[in-house]
């Protein structure tokens, strides 16, 4: 940048200021985090489209953001489309409490993440008494006064 000054007599002076502009990258942001606890049954399917925004890479439609999904419990039935952030089940849901983390990374390597839990219910089971027991007998007692 050059600073230039001139007086009424026409004399002038100038000097140059060199500006160094450092770009600060901004991390992406998941804009629609799923609720942290989600109840499902083994017969349900799961689909959730995570959205993200980024000052430099805009959003997932630009193709510069990369989504990934991690299960701390080793669940393999959920997959994520790395470009659009859609998480779906690739196989039947398994009963249990499963913890996941969704990550989004921008082109500068900065991340945002969100943790969520799926509580997947199977059929409740009474393990005792078993149904094939021959019978249950209640003995009524009678008090005569």
């Amino acid at each position, binding site marked *: 940048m050059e600073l230039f000054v001139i007086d009424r007599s026409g004399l002038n002076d100038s000097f140059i200021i060199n500006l160094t502009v450092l770009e600060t990258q901004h991390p992406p942001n998941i804009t629609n985090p799923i609720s942290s606890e989600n109840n499902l049954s083994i017969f349900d399917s799961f689909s959730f489209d995570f959205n993200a925004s980024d000052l430099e890479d805009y959003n997932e439609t630009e193709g510069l953001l990369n989504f990934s999904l991690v299960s701390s419990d080793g669940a393999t039935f959920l997959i994520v489309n790395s470009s659009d952030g859609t998480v779906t089940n690739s196989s039947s849901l398994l009963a249990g409490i499963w913890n996941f983390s969704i990550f989004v990374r921008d082109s500068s390597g900065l991340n945002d993440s969100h943790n969520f839990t799926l509580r997947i*219910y199977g059929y*409740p089971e009474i*393990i005792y008494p078993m*149904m094939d027991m021959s019978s249950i*007998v*209640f003995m*009524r007692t009678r008090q005569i006064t």
Partner: protein
Amino acid sequence: MQDALDFDFAINNISRNQTMGMGNETYFNVTIVTNYTDETTCSGKIQLSANVSNPKLSALYSWNLSILQ
């Protein structure tokens, strides 16, 4: 899950006790009060059923039941 499960105990499809129990493979006690009309001395065995539910699914269990005086 170890959630609280909802148990509905019935004798011949008439609910006698609704209670909550933990689904953690431990025993819990249920009290079912019968009366004289439930006695099976003459009628033969009747059915004790338990409908057990979690927030998403339920299962029905049944046992033959004799109530003797």
